[in-house]
């Protein structure tokens, strides 16, 4: 295993009840790049993300075989501190999910859970996170107003800021632009490109073009299998597998 492998999956299988969702996944993802998980619906992309921060623990029927390592540490080891793992592996969901709190309280939610109560410190964290998510200029005048009043695109950037406030190492985004207009999408893509200098980003893009625009590497998933994985140029110009080619050229999906 090379030093720069941030995430490694070894013969990883995931099930909901008897239904397999991921089959024999072997995958390495390096730090400080955008890795796009491409594939049609129900191909296991979200399941993979939710195993990385063990949100699958909340699903009673979920179980797994195989191993996942982050920084060479076993994610499923009994010694793992779950809140700590989830702080290191932040997740943004497909629909904007602001909590019914003010903008400030949404971003400060995670840091407060971690035990940070000092007001000036929280203010600093919130400001930095909102700036990184390219939302600060739009909301700096009304941090105490309800997050529910923001537009869809602003809410999603708020969710990104909320994750950034925890200073994670990995950020997972599950179709973060699915409900958004092209302008909001562009601003989120712009912030992602900027963020990859510091973070490892896993992105389920909401269409193939988005993957080609922002990703460094791409994995193509189909019915729970990883069909192929490679640099974005290679996947888009010289796919090795016929199914990848068909999907990218729009023959199915």
């Amino acid at each position, binding site marked *: 295993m090379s030093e720069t492998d941030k995430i490694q999956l070894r013969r990883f299988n995931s099930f909901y009840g008897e239904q397999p969702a991921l089959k024999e996944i072997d995958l390495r993802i390096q730090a400080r790049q955008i890795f796009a998980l491409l594939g049609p619906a129900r191909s296991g992309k979200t399941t993979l993300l939710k195993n990385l*921060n063990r*949100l699958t623990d*909340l699903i*009673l029927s979920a179980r797994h075989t195989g191993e996942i390592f982050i920084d060479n540490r076993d994610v499923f080891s009994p010694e793992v501190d*779950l*809140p*700590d793992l*989830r*702080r290191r592996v*932040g*997740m943004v*969901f497909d*629909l904007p*999910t602001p*909590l*019914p*709190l*003010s*903008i400030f*309280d949404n971003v400060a*939610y*995670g840091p*407060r*859970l*971690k035990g940070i109560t000092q007001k000036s410190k929280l203010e600093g964290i919130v400001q930095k996170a909102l700036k990184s998510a390219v939302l600060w200029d739009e909301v700096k005048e*009304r941090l*105490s*107003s*309800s*997050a*529910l*009043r923001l537009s869809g695109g602003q809410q999603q950037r708020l969710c990104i800021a*909320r*994750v950034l406030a*925890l200073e994670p190492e990995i950020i997972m985004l599950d179709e973060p632009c699915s409900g958004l207009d092209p302008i909001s999408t562009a601003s989120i893509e712009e912030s992602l490109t900027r963020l990859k200098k510091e973070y490892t980003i896993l992105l389920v893009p909401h269409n193939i073009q988005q993957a080609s625009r922002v990703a460094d590497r791409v994995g193509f998933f189909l019915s729970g299998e990883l069909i192929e994985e490679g640099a974005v140029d290679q996947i888009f110009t010289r796919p090795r597998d016929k199914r990848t080619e068909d999907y990218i050229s729009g023959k199915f999906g």
Partner: protein
Amino acid sequence: MLLSRYHTQTAAKTVIWVGAFGTLAVMVWILWQVLREGVPLLHLEFFLDSPRQMGRTGGIFPTIVGTMALTVVAVLIATPLGVGTAVYLREYTREGRVSRLIRFGTDCLAGVPSIIFGLFGFVFFVIFLGLGWSILSGGLTLATMILPTIICTAEEAIKAIPKSYREVSYALGGTRWQTIAKVILPNAIPGIFTGVLLGVGRSVGETAAIILTSGSSFLMPTSLFSPVRTMSIHFYILAREGISMEMAYATGAALILLILIINTVANWLLHRYVRKLEGKGHV
């Protein structure tokens, strides 16, 4: 075909209107009846004096204090128990034998007539625990009575919280307890409040269970162990024993006003809370 559809529409509309306005009419009529008889007799002294000559003259101050004390004791005991049960049922356990048993128990409790609670309270709190006819015995009895309502409304309130809130809280590094304390309970409070308010209404209006557990002394209570007479019991005794119909109506009117005040204040508090929770300018 068109005609018959039209007629069904009209018939349905009529039934619904009669239902809605029938209910309203009954409510207005009852209120009107009590207030018309009672309000002219309401003076400041009536609220601040003790009953004299068995209630023929004087006021109702001790019964107001008694009503409030019993209600506060009942709510203070039943709310944490009920909310705790609801949180356990929804957040700590899956549907199974234990949760079914708890639900079956609360459903049964909800259907028991209040006089049976009174009997239980008399045997258990008054006699067995030796608390005597007291605010404490009555409050505990009322607490067992309003518990099912509080559990049920709290559970509904927790159930109505979007799944995504939980997921977000866990994903941001929240423990189960942090998630309950910071997301689940704050968002369930408006619903829980409704249940508590129903409990308050039931406590204020209860007579049978109280007579058996708190007695009917109209002396000013001095501690949790004093017997009390609530406004409803005062009303009942005045009317039942033929002591004074006027004073009964006046007490009834005061009782209705008290409930109106409690509801108004509660709604105002709730509104303020929701605004504060969600930040300024809530949609």
